[in-house]
């Protein structure tokens, strides 16, 4: 076997006194006084703890594979159980009729769908422009000394429990106004969205090749025009991805809405100065009900929500893939 190897690592104990030097020496080449090939064979034939290392390697591989399978299985089980329990209550009637009075399960979720659309739409209108501007500031204008703490703060904000955001908005908007409102819900969701939009936009802007900006600067194009006409269009797909993921993330957000936007009137409401229904709050309230029909309705609403979020994620990823291709990543 050693014939095939051109060189081995071997030690020259006498070369530099006490210090041991590792270097590559061709097999069969003898330098003065050293029996190089002998040392080399010894190293090659000594298998040491190789067996044990192979075993550890195998164990880590198996354990991590199981973990990955588990993660996929969790999603499949969740989706599967939601579909199996909710699909029975799903109908055109369910989607197009507003919820009935408390305890009346003959209605549907049209008011919740419209309410979620209004609240999440308003939240997106607030969070996406601000999030993009924050990302533009940190990646295009701020020095690293400033950008780093801003990124850190965004990560912290992303980690704030949404119930805390809800209490904050409750104290800030609901208490002074004396009532819940769609606006309060939208502001709470916007706070949840902001760090997601900003962080993904930062990552995407960082992917835009510096050579493109260089090309623009070298043409005498001003910084802000380069940003608007070169950097942002190049990154557009990725920026859209971040926005869609943020929307998908808050569409199912429940905790802040229960606090600031959960006591609403009958029928399909669209005026955000009043409290509006929403799909997550409908799921929560129906699941709290003692009636089994209400539970089935909760499952059906969950199915609608999860389908919306999954579709949004898939679309977002498709945009991202296209954008990465464009940026040569």
């Amino acid at each position: 076997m050693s014939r095939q190897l051109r060189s081995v690592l071997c030690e020259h104990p006498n070369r530099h006194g006490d210090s041991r030097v590792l270097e590559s020496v061709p097999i069969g080449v003898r330098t003065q006084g050293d029996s190089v090939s002998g040392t080399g064979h010894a190293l090659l034939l000594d298998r040491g703890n190789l067996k044990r290392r192979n075993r550890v390697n195998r164990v880590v591989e198996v354990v991590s594979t199981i973990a990955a399978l588990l993660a996929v299985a969790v999603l499949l089980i969740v989706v599967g159980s939601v579909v199996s329990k909710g699909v029975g209550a799903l109908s055109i009637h369910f989607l197009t009729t507003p919820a009935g009075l408390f305890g009346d399960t003959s209605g549907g979720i049209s008011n919740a769908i419209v309410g979620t659309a209004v609240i999440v739409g308003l939240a997106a209108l607030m969070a996406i422009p601000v999030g993009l501007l924050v990302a533009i500031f940190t990646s295009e204008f701020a020095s690293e000394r400033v950008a780093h703490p801003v990124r850190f703060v965004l990560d912290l904000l992303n980690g704030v429990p949404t119930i805390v955001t809800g209490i904050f908005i409750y104290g800030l908007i609901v208490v002074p106004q004396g009532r819940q409102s769609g606006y309060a819900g939208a502001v709470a969701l916007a706070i949840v969205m902001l760090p997601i939009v900003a962080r993904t936009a930062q990552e995407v802007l960082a992917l835009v090749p510096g050579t493109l900006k260089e090309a623009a600067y070298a043409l005498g194009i001003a910084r802000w025009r380069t940003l608007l006409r070169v950097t942002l269009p190049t990154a557009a797909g990725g920026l859209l991805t971040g926005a869609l993921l943020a929307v998908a993330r808050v569409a199912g957000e429940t905790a802040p809405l229960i606090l600031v936007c959960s006591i609403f009137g009958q029928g399909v409401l669209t005026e955000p100065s009043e409290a509006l229904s929403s799909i997550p709050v409908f799921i929560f309230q129906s699941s709290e009900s003692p009636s089994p029909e209400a539970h089935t309705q909760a499952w059906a609403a969950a199915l609608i929500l999860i389908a919306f979020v999954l579709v949004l994620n898939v679309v977002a990823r498709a945009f991202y893939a296209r954008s990465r291709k464009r940026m040569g990543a």
Partner: protein
Amino acid sequence: MDSRHSTQSPAMTEPNPEPQAQAPQRGPAISIAGSSASRPLRKSRDVGNVALKDLNAYYGSNHAVRGVSLDFDADRVTAIIGPSGCGKSTMVRCVNRMHEEISSARASGQVLLDGLDLYDAAIDVVAVRRAVGMVFQKPNPFPTMSVIDNVTAGLRLTGASRGELEDRGREALVGAGLWDEVKDRLKAPGAGLSGGQQQRLCIARALAVEPEVLLMDEPCSALDPVATLKIEELIGELKQRVTVVIVTHNMQQAARVADTTVFMLSGELVEVGPTDKMFTNPDDDRTEQYVTGKFG
């Protein structure tokens, strides 16, 4: 800067009555007689002469360009050769002030374009870059723009009127030898062209804003030999309308395209002279060693 632009454009198409001797000749490269006399007479331009005076450039504490004084003369192609990391790219990036785009980078000394210091506080960096264009190592067309939009990007994004865009875009594509290949797909994405076409697209884009100087930073290093040949032929035509400075790793390329060759080593200017002399009988031993492939 604008007034010089307006006086310059006719000189590109009509023969200039002024004799070439009027052009300022400061550097050692040009004072060596023989080479210019043996060449066929060309139209001479009296704009686009660049002079570096004691130029130093740094990246943080790294002294990348050390006290270089050098002239790039109009209607000549100057090639800059030297081993990797010798400061050739950094030096040319100082000419259009792209060097300062890198954080922690700074430069000192003077870069004169027709006697005007480009580092003067009164001069806007955007104006510098319109007068001194640049082509980069890797073709970098804007991926979201069509062929024609790429070419006119510099014009559109610096506020040219819509009417002149098309004409000047076509002119630039003709000038870059790309018109015949792309005239039927001007609206197609610029990134869809071949590598060599993309690079000529980038040259056209740089030419469209009618610079006086065109810096080319290893423009062929990402291209195959055929595409390289096309660009080299193009460089020969370009020197009639713009001062060309080309950084190259490829000594044969320098020998093929350049009138004047500059050899740099460790940030210092070692020797500058007519290309024939630099490759056959250089004055400096280090130049001789480099051009004969003894190091680098």
